[in-house]
């Protein structure tokens, strides 16, 4: 009897919770709207934005200090991708912000996989526990569509936008701005071992896919004839959602097609993209110049593999450069642009966008906006490139003497066409692409079947 009573009480309590939660949700929506309306951007004279972002010595916009004081901000909370020990430029930019505003910065270093699981409950609870949110292609549009990020149109205009790489236009959603750029990594740079190439009779890195296949075959070697490959010619990222999908996209761009934007639609089964998947499958299954385990290789794994010393050529983001310089390979590696599909073919590159957004529920909005403004400015962007070797969107940042000291600056100078694509549902689309791509890599489906199946799933996800 007592057990039954307890069960009934528990069920009633759960029911009350559900009703209470429902009531909160309705009220909460209004609260959320109120929080957005409450911010008055006119307290700070944001214009002219262009002049401020390109100044070599950053200067606060007029009225900023007074607005921060009126707001009562003492400290802002900034979530950061990964541990801060890897991000000295972020710390430096934070210090610069504090020096200018006397507002402290509490950084919360969070592993990539835990970022949304941590932020999402805060947003859903309309918590002010976070002010500045780190963004990338996978979370930005989702956060915006749910009203979690504050619109920052007053920080942008066409003249200001023109100071940044064109790819940044993709961060404008439905005609509105919700972010500023943090970094924009070039994800595909070719790293190679000159000594290995020389031993195989090559003077320089491959410049076309044809050359890559030929060289990778020559560089895949069983040194002691024991039937085991001791040196691999090439390796790519066939695992990881963003890594795998961007690999396909990057190669498709070299054939002149952007699968994320084929006449305004996401299309991963064009003949060009199928050709890319076929090429990658052939590298694994036909030419056998990449390790069979590539389907499990995610970002970081390629770098570790290259640094382990038994691969001749890899394509990886520019952050590998710094790791190579600190490793035993420092004197035996070089960097080049990744091979084009064919001689004279396009050299379009993906820029992996990371941005900052301001939580709609922040109580330190002006301070947060100034943090974002500092970060996108000349000095903030130079710090990112010169200290952390993260490419940035602000074009003038590459002209700084500090930036010119970066070892592969001459390689970057050859890149003149980059893309960034952001749309809602991108994470789910990429997941479908990588799953089907891996089936092609494993030989379970042909490249065409795999990409057609991926497209079927994409059509469903995006409601085409």
């Amino acid at each position, binding site marked *: 009897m007592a057990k039954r009573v307890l069960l009934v009480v*528990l069920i009633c*309590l*759960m*029911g*009350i*919770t*559900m009703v209470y*939660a*429902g009531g909160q*949700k309705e009220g909460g*929506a209004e609260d959320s709207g109120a929080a957005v309306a409450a911010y008055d951007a006119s307290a700070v004279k944001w214009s002219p934005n262009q002049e401020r972002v390109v100044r070599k010595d950053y200067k606060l916009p007029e009225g900023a200090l007074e607005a921060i004081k009126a707001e009562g901000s003492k400290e802002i909370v900034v979530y950061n991708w990964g541990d801060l020990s890897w991000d000295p430029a972020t710390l430096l930019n934070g210090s610069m912000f504090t020096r200018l505003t006397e507002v402290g910065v509490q950084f919360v270093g969070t592993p990539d*996989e835990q970022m*949304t*699981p941590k932020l*999402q409950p805060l947003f*859903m609870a309309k918590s002010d526990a976070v002010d500045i949110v780190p963004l990338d292609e*996978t979370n930005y549009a*989702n956060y915006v*569509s*749910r*009203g979690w990020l504050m619109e920052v149109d007053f920080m942008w205009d066409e003249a200001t936008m023109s100071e940044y790489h064109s790819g940044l236009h993709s961060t404008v959603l439905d005609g509105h701005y919700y972010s500023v750029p943090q970094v924009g990594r070039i994800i595909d740079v070719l790293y190679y071992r000159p000594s290995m190439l020389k031993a195989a009779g090559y003077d320089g890195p491959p410049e076309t896919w044809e050359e890559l296949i030929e060289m990778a075959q020559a560089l895949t070697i069983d040194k002691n004839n024991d*039937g*085991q*490959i001791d040196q*691999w010619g090439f390796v790519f990222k066939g*695992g*990881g*959602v963003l890594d795998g999908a961007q690999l396909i996209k990057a190669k498709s761009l070299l054939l002149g097609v952007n699968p994320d934007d084929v006449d305004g639609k996401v299309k991963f089964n064009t003949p060009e993209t199928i050709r890319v998947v076929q090429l990658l499958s052939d590298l694994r299954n036909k030419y056998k110049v990449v*390790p*069979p*385990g*590539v*389907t*499990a290789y*995610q970002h970081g794994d390629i770098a570790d*593999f290259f640094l*382990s010393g*038994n691969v001749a050529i890899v394509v990886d983001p520019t952050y590998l450069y710094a790791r190579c310089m600190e490793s035993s390979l420092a004197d035996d590696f070089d960097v080049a642009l990744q091979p084009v599909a064919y001689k004279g073919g396009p050299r379009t590159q993906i820029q992996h966008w990371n941005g900052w957004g301001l939580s709609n529920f922040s109580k330190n909005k002006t301070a947060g906006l100034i943090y974002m403004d500092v970060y996108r400015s000349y000095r903030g962007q130079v710090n990112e490139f010169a200290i952390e070797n993260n490419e940035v969107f602000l074009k003038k940042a590459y002209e700084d003497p500090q930036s010119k000291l970066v070892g592969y600056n001459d390689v970057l100078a050859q890149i003149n066409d980059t893309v960034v694509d952001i749309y809602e*549902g991108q*994470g*789910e689309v990429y*997941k479908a692409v*990588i*799953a*089907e791509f*891996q*089936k092609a*890599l*494993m*030989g*379970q489906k042909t490249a065409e079947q795999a990409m057609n199946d991926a497209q079927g799933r994409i059509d469903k996800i995006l409601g085409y």
Partner: protein
Amino acid sequence: MIRSDKIVKDSLFGFLLILPSLLLLMLLVVFPVGYVLYLSTLNFDTLIPNFVGLRNYTELLFNDQFFWIFLGHSMEYVFFAICSAFVVALLVALSLNTINKFQGTLRTFALWCWAVPPVIASLMWKWILNDTNGVLNDMLLKAGIIHQQVAWLALSKGTMFILSQVHAWTIIPFIMVILLAGLQSIPLELYEVASIDGANGLQKFRLITYPLLRTAVLTSVMLASIFAFRHIDIVFTLTKGGPGEATEMLVTYLYDNAFAYMKIGYAAALSVIMVFISMLIVLVLVKLIRPNESQ
């Protein structure tokens, strides 16, 4: 004779004593469960979530092509992980129960892998299983067991089994500790009597050890199965569900829906279904393992 108003007073006092715990329980269990149930009835595609009743549940159970496939993968993972871990844990527990020398040291060693955080263990296994630089391939090649490097995490079939064995490695100590405690509660006299009656080792195990260990077996297997069913670290670190969807499980599907696709209502419904599946696993295990009255 005790007066009735004193009984009422005493029970009220008792209730007041447990009230803080009850409140805490409500805060930590009842409210979240109620809230998840509420979330599972919403659709979060829009700025303001809207009520969709049981649509998330019907969508999952009847229209989602992946749900049943991933449920099968989850079951495969739990089954192989628990079977392997149980067999090894039982052998270790029996050994530790018998060995008299260096008991403390040996038990500490046996618990060692339990002390490794799951994410660290996963990263460690990622390198052990690496096809080109991994120590497993190196050892097997040198021992002549394999003649080609094997891409353990990229097998057309069998990658799920590999993941389950990594999981088994992490939970062997947990099962072993419970079994060892169970073994130590068996009176030694029973074995002495059996020896006098001429029973051999196997007969002692079958007729004394196992029947008296069933409660410990049930507890350990039940808990380990539930833990395995909701475990994400290993698959997330090692394969991220690949190759293809070969190692995609309900728990990774839940993570993706909640945090990658932002389908919070759908994910909440999936989590509720997973709770019911866990309960079903418990019921099956109780039916299979629970000692009956006569035993």
